[in-house]
């Protein structure tokens, strides 16, 4: 392990364990409310990426990597695919490419749930941002080995 990870501290490590889920939840919250309040895919993605980077500093690289389970580049790919695919549904109802489509689902307990292509698009952006930031950070850490 290279130099900068020698600064592991118990407080940071424990704190991260508690804060990390909260941060990730918060990032989702930012993502989903983004259409109406400050937030959105970019901001949410940056928060989530920063949270995982925090894990990297508090613990070590393998634990941060296992937290993610997949390679960040795959996240980029999935995000890009979701965002690109969200441009297509409008074509099926005969509207122009990328025209927003809205659907409302009525769930038994939660009440009406609004789904839309902009939401999926934003989720794609979210994943893309997480993936790119983490690719950069992980790659650099690996290069230090």
């Amino acid at each position, binding site marked *: 392990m290279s130099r900068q990870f020698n600064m592991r501290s118990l407080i940071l490590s424990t704190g991260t364990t508690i804060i990390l889920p909260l941060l990730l939840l918060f990032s989702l919250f930012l993502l989903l409310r983004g*259409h109406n*309040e*400050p*937030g959105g895919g970019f901001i949410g993605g940056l928060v989530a990426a920063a949270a995982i980077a925090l894990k990297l500093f508090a613990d070590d690289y393998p634990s941060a990597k296992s937290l993610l389970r997949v390679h960040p580049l795959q996240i*980029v790919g999935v995000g890009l695919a979701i965002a690109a695919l969200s441009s297509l549904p409008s074509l099926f109802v005969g509207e122009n490419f990328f025209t*927003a489509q809205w659907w409302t689902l009525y769930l038994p307990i939660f009440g009406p749930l*609004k789904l839309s292509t902009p939401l999926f698009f934003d989720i794609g952006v979210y994943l893309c941002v997480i993936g790119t930031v983490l690719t950069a950070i992980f790659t*650099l850490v690996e290069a230090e080995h």
Partner: protein
Amino acid sequence: MLYVVLSLFVLACFAPLLHRTFGRHSGNVFAILPAVLFAYFISYLPLISQGELITQRWLWFPGMNIHLSFLLDGLSVLFALLITGIGSFILLYANRYLAGHPALGRFFLFLLIFMGAMLGLVLSDNLITLFVFWELTTVSSFMLIGFNHEEAESRQKAHQGLMVTVIGGLALMTGFIMVGFAAGSYELSDILQQDLTAHTLYIPMIVLILLGAFTKSAQTPFHFWLPNAMAAPTPVSAYLHSATMVKAGIYLLARLQPTLGDSAAWMLTLSAVGAVTMLTGIVLASRATGVKKVLAYSTVMALGTLTMLLGLGTEKAALAAVTFLFAHALYKGALFMIAGILDHEAGIKDLLKASGLRHKMPKTCAVAIIAALSLAGVIPLFGFVAKELLLEAVLNGSHWQISLIIATVIANIFVVLVAALLAIKPWFGASLPTPKAAHDPGIAMLLGPTVLATLSLLFGLFPFIADKWLLQAAAKAVFGGEITTYLALWHGINLPLLLSVISLTCGLLLYSQWARWRQLTQGLERLSFLGPEALYNKMMAGLVAFAAWQTHVLQNGYLRNYLLTTIATMLLLVGWAMLRLDNFHLNLNFQDVKIQEATVFLILLVTILSAVLVKSFLAALALLGALGFAVALIYVFFSAVDVGITQVLVETITVLLLVLVLYRLPEFRKLSSNANRARDAIIAISSGAMITLLILLVTSARSMEGISSFFIEKSVPEGFGRNVVNVILVDFRALDTLGEIFVLALVAIGIYAMVHLRTGSKPVTNADKRLTSELKIAATSKGDAQ
């Protein structure tokens, strides 16, 4: 008609695949489509010959008045029939001629693309669409000329043809835009109703269009690319360089004749260039010995003749032009295919080595003689009808009758010589040994020339068939008015007939002295360094040298020099523009600055200054972090919540990233001299000052309402979101955002590749070695060029 054109392109796309399925019969299968299309166009003839005009339109870019619109009249149907008719024979022929060639699938691909493009060109009713097809013929012909791309010569000739025609194409597009501007429409059917000769843009318009047409149709001084294009396989030469592509320029001139033709500038240019091309082409043809070279130069002559006829502008000339064009396509297509047969079946490429083949190849010989007689204009072939009409048109022309008739007769004498070379030289006389055992080819290769030669004979005997069904309507489209002359084989004994006889006699005399004639004119070869081809080569060499020089000067490998040049240029240009402003007044206003804003401002100034001056990288890093957060504060102060949050987050991650990498980089060293630093500081400070001035000017002069009010109004009703910034990002301007995350993805892949995929770790393969050595060769030759 859209489907007609598209069908060829679709077939082209599948050609390599189908070629694998059908194997050695693929060309025969492909030939079915043009044959069907030929029948389709024939079915229009009754309508067209009555003077009907058929237009069809599909919207393509309606906002720019560019449509896929098609026009079928006498002229376009004549070309369409030639393209599809000869095209199907060529496919049959090529299938046999190139049998077993490893890249035959690719050959059919390009040939069919060319066929589709050519058909699109002559059927287009929209100038822009026409231009697209025009360029497509250029590109596909480039691929066809350079089909044997492993030979350097083939590549070079293809390149030459491409350069010449593309330069013309550029001019043509500009000309087309001018025509569209002057006529108020890009539709030919609208444009042809108008006479643009009085328009102020008329002269530049015709200069540009003529440049395009002349390069494509190989008029002097651009004629040199056509004989060189004979590097192509013979079926290509037979198709592109005799019957179709080179006639695209003629088609264009004929097409625009009613609109642009009624002026002295147009007529005299066309007559002069046409006559010069005619003479140049035929004199060079009489000196050549390669079978294909002779044919190529005589094609140049024919193209010149056509241009000259169009320049006459009379009713008779219009009829003569379409008749000559039709006759030429028939006999020249046949002769080219026979040249290919000579090469393929007897291994003969040079006329000097061919003699006495009539016993070994009797059928080929018969067909060749018929086609060559038509070329010579001997009664009763169709070429005779065309030549009589040509002479008559020139005699009754509107200008320069004497010089043009002399030129035409001289040209005709040489044409007879060329025809004799093709009809007598290879077939009669003593038998010479041939590289291959000479024999007649199979039906696939002989069918095309035979049918074409037979048609030459048929239309010669019964010219009214071609006249009534096809040529009258075509001539009408060229002339723009009714045609009252009719084709006939026999006009009685008159001046044209007399001139015909004279040229026939002189031509045959010349044939008997061919060897001496070539010897006499040997001096011409020494003049070739003055010719246009030499000029072209010099120009290309100059262009390459200039490119090398400017690359050397501008791209010297120092990033900061590029930056310096860019910034200094911007500084000069913007500064100059600012100095020229009339009411240059700045309203500096610091009254509304709040205390917290002033504080942030001061913090920022200090951080910027120290970030520039500090010696340690870690200090600079800390300062940059501070700077980023202060900027975020500014965003928040001025109502940009989302931006502020993003800035804070990005700043955090940036610092993190930099820490990861750069903690082990060295301390800053002083690398530049003091003089350089001072120079850079002056440039930097003046740029900064200019930006400040620019902002002050721009903010005090804002006169138009922004488009943001639209987004604010529509955000809730149509975007269902109350955060307008986010609605813009994911809904209104989602395509931009999509592009942006693509960039992010590229960055991620790039980063990953840079660290993980190292070239050094791979075992070096032979291919790599070859690549390296090729690169080295390229580098050395570049060094030589410099």
